[in-house]
């Protein structure tokens, strides 16, 4: 669709505004993998109960608002694969990889690149390379989709 890039810009600006607001209002960095991962392994709760609650509220918004908006804008498809092996393998790699790297697309990509962080740049290059190789390997060589 031709309008895709316009919606990309609009949605991107919303994502960046959310990251800016989380930094200036709450003093926190909007990195999805860090927020989820530190709640999952309990390190956030051990460090501070209130900051764990804050990140929980963030995740609640992250799940509820698009869930409601999805109903309003015509239920766009996720086109997510339904093959359990792929979902599990991909989930494990995304989870372990982002925690090893201390960041994902939002943390290293949006928050890192915007302050010209060397680490953010290195991470972004390597996850893009990994993603590109993954598509070549799984999709084009093995025919998995």
């Amino acid at each position, binding site marked *: 669709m031709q309008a895709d890039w316009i919606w990309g810009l609009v949605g991107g600006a919303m994502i960046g505004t959310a990251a*800016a607001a989380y930094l200036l209002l709450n003093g926190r960095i909007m990195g999805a993998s860090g927020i989820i991962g530190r709640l999952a392994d309990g390190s956030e709760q051990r460090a501070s109960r209130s900051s764990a609650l804050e990140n929980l509220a963030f995740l609640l918004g992250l799940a509820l608002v698009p869930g409601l908006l999805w109903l309003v804008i015509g239920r766009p498809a996720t086109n997510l694969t339904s093959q359990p092996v792929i979902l599990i393998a991909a989930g494990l790699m*995304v989870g372990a990889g982002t925690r090893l*790297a201390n960041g994902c697309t*939002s943390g290293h990509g949006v928050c890192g690149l915007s302050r010209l962080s060397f680490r953010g740049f290195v991470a972004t290059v390597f996850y893009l390379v990994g993603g590109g190789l993954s598509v070549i390997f799984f999709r084009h060589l093995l025919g998995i989709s």
Partner: protein
Amino acid sequence: MRLLAAFGCGGLFGAGLLVSGMTDTTKVIGWLDIFGDWDPTLAFVLAAAIVPMAIAWRIAPRRKTAVFGGPLSPPPFRDADRGLVLGSLAFGFGWGLAGLCPGPSVAVLLFGGWNSLLFLIAMLAGMVAAPVLRARIDRLAAG
């Protein structure tokens, strides 16, 4: 107030992911698929997202505290290390395979069905396992 702001930021993040099409795994995989039917949308999303955040990084040092109190989280200064490179490569591999990264995996939870829940559970398991993996990698590297 802090909790409400956090909820609002999460909501705006999620709404932005949905509006930009980043909850559609074919658009994400399409961006990574440079030898296939390449979809440049993700580049527009990332470029537009960086602008407000770059402004926020310039405002932040002039403030002592966040608007709702408490310290402004300083950007973490660490060196690029093995974990950063290997972790990002592994993340990219999983990202290209399913088309979901951590933010969208939560954003699609209410309409992505059981498949998205399975992905999220596996991702949480991977996150919890990461420290063990890190220790292993360090031991291997140390010889």
